[in-house]
């Protein structure tokens, strides 16, 4: 029964690599493996693959990988034997196990359910507050991966297991010693009194967490049994004498020597022991922990090294990525050129082909039959295929953005850019709406962003953008001009109605007609953003066309509602003639 006691079943459909801990390595695999439990063949495990790792031995069953696969922690292995085989007997490896430490704590290997396995949960270090990820081997997860300080304690079962909320003893219940254990090491459940196998963390019957048994059962005879002997117990395991605490791996298809060597190495390497950290005392081999290994991961050094490693690796990744990008940039121009070349050739071929295909009557045409034959080789389907491929690559570009290398002359280049920008602003060919749409004013930043978004590639730097702007009026109708507002230095593109003089005249007319207005009302009237309206109104004020009423010094509280907001008036002081008291 040592097979049941020392192994845990795993889902064999998962690739073995996915089952490994973070710090575990797969070393060797061998198929055609049969398992002996003790000295006898284990019937369900007769054909499968064995995988040896630094921490564990996996057996993945070939027929029923889900139900019959298992894993075995190498920590249990006390010694090994190799049997070379004789005639029909296959070579075998025998693994002898340590006796299991009597009650396995919930956090220890081999016992508890998957939820209790410390490796399957992330936890926060008490010392450095590093959140340790799950996936490390049980031994490695006992210490913080960052600072190397051992994990303080197993999680409080009262928090984890809801059933423990009930008080263990109530007045009506007979006083059962909670930690009572009988001669076999069985633990009596404090709630239902069922005698559970010592390996269990929770009662087999009612699920109540079992009390830990503090001392090893030395004074069994002193402790009275808390219940009659007729109580049901967990079916006891076979008494595991040293001869039965073993399993055998039978190598039906050979490979035993190599596998054995690897296994020996794993056992000697003791990868399951965390180096440099004393293990908890209930672990079997704490006394033989090898301190000599240099790769200590604890303390400030460990933290610094971790940080350095992380930085170095991210640096490497970044450099690789940038190199890729540079390589792409080098190739990009060639790609485009090649695509354009192809496209041109195809166009030339398709235009010349019909002409040359016409039956040449004159003998002078004979010279042209040569190229005609070659052009015939390009089938129309192929041509369309190539072209569609080019289009998919984005290399065809019927509306290719104007770039500097397309047009050598810089003046013409700027002019072409201005034409393109005009299209972006006002829509091309009278169809579609440009950035300006119905608006008369638009900020320079918005235009720049919109234009570059429209180009997509070969983006225009702001300096070039500013160079293009003076050429804009000649390509737009109505002409669009740039204007810089004095207040904030904001530059805008605008249509003629928003020139300084036109706007001032319109504003004065509006104010004279309907009386004082706030900036918000003016912005509504002009359908421009409030901030922009504010700027433009201030400019008009600067010309002395209008004046402001701040109103903040109102007398009565009733007037406060309209206070704080400046109302704009036509400049009533201009040409004012005194009509008050004269002496």
């Amino acid at each position, binding site marked *: 029964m040592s097979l049941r006691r020392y192994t845990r079943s795993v889902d064999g459909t998962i690739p073995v690599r996915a089952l490994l801990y973070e710090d575990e390595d797969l070393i060797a695999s061998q198929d055609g493996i049969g398992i002996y439990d003790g000295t006898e063949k284990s019937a369900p495990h007769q054909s499968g693959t064995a995988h040896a790792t630094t921490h564990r031995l996996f057996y993945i069953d070939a027929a029923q990988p889900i139900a019959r696969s298992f894993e075995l922690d190498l920590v249990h292995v006390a010694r090994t034997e190799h049997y070379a085989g004789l005639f029909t007997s296959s070579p075998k490896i025998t693994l002898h196990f340590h006796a299991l430490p009597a009650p396995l704590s919930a956090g220890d290997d081999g016992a508890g359910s998957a939820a209790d396995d410390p490796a399957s949960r992330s936890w926060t270090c008490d010392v450095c507050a590093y959140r340790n990820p799950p996936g490390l081997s049980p031994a490695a997860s006992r210490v913080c991966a960052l600072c190397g300080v051992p994990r303080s304690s197993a999680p409080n079962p009262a928090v984890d297991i809801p059933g423990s909320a009930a008080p263990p003893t109530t007045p009506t219940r007979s006083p059962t010693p909670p930690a009572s254990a009988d001669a076999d090491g069985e633990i009596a459940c404090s709630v239902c009194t069922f005698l559970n196998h010592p390996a269990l963390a929770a009662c087999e019957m009612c699920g109540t967490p079992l009390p830990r048994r503090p001392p090893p059962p030395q004074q069994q005879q002193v402790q009275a049994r808390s219940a009659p002997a007729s109580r049901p117990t967990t079916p006891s395991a076979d008494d595991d004498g040293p001869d039965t605490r073993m399993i055998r791996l039978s190598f039906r298809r050979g490979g035993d020597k190599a596998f054995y060597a690897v296994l020996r190495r794993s056992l000697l390497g003791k990868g399951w022991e965390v180096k440099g950290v004393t293990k908890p005392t209930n672990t079997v081999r704490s006394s033989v922990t090898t301190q000599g290994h240099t790769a200590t991961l604890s303390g400030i050094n460990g933290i610094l090294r971790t940080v350095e490693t992380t930085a170095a690796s991210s640096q490497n990744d970044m450099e690789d990525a940038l190199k890729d990008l540079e390589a792409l940039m080098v190739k990009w121009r060639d790609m485009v050129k090649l695509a354009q070349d192809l496209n041109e050739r195809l166009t030339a071929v398709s235009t010349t082909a019909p002409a040359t295909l016409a039956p040449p009557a004159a003998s002078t045409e004979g010279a042209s039959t040569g190229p005609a034959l070659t052009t015939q080789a390009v089938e129309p389907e192929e041509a369309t295929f190539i072209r569609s491929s080019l289009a998919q690559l984005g290399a065809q570009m019927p509306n290719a953005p104007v770039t500097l290398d397309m047009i050598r002359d810089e003046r013409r280049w700027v002019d072409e850019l201005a034409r393109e920008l005009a299209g972006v602003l006002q829509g091309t060919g009278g169809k579609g709406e440009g950035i300006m749409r119905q608006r008369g004013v638009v900020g320079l930043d918005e235009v720049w962003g919109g234009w570059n978004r429209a180009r997509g590639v070969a983006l225009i730097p702001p300096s070039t953008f500013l160079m293009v702007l003076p050429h804009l009026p000649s390509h737009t109708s109505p002409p669009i001009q740039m204007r810089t507002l004095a207040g904030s230095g904001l530059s805008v593109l605008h249509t003629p109605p928003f020139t300084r003089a036109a706007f001032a005249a319109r504003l004065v007319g509006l104010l004279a007609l309907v009386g*004082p207005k706030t900036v918000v009302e003016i912005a509504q009237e002009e359908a421009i953003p409030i901030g922009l309206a504010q700027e433009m109104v201030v400019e008009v*004020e600067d010309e002395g066309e209008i004046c402001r009423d701040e109103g*903040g010094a109102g*007398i009565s509280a009733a007037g406060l509602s309209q206070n704080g907001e400046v109302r704009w008036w036509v400049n009533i002081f201009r040409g004012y003639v005194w009509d008050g008291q004269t002496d």
Partner: protein
Amino acid sequence: MSLSPHTTPSGFLLPSIHAAPPFFTLQPKAETQALVTEQWTRLILSYARHRRLFYLRVEDAEPPGSDWDEVLRNDRINRRLPPSHLSYILDDMVSKNKAMYEPVKQTRSVLLFWRLPEEWAEVLHDWASSTAQLNTILTFFEIVEPPVPSQLSGIPDTLLRRAISILTKTNRAQVIAVSDGEGVRFLAGNVSK
């Protein structure tokens, strides 16, 4: 929006611009503010002459109840002149010799020149001659508080001294020390001027 002049309870005719809210705002635009200041100066001096007020303090713009309420506030349009604006106007008036800081070395209070000291000098001399007090020695008190009220009644001491000093320079007055302070004797002088 049509603005119209308004007559105050004290019988002062406020100009129509006094009913325009922007009139009470300190305009950021210098040219516009110059126009505003000019109108305020005129308004303040007219009102001072109307009410025979000689002093204007920045504090007069703060709480209601001062002599200047009718001008510095307009309840009909819910506006009042902010002290900062008034301070600006007073500064401008002093720089244009329409007022002087009184007392000196501060800028919160001014003595208004709704008549310039030179004009006051003429008024003073005319008063003395018309009341046949030339060549008689008058104390300052007799000028400021004459038995028969005159234009000079209640004139501030500072202003009176400046007027007298102007007359002294043209030999039309003479300051004489008398038993209880100073006195002044007005002379006919050369009326030709």
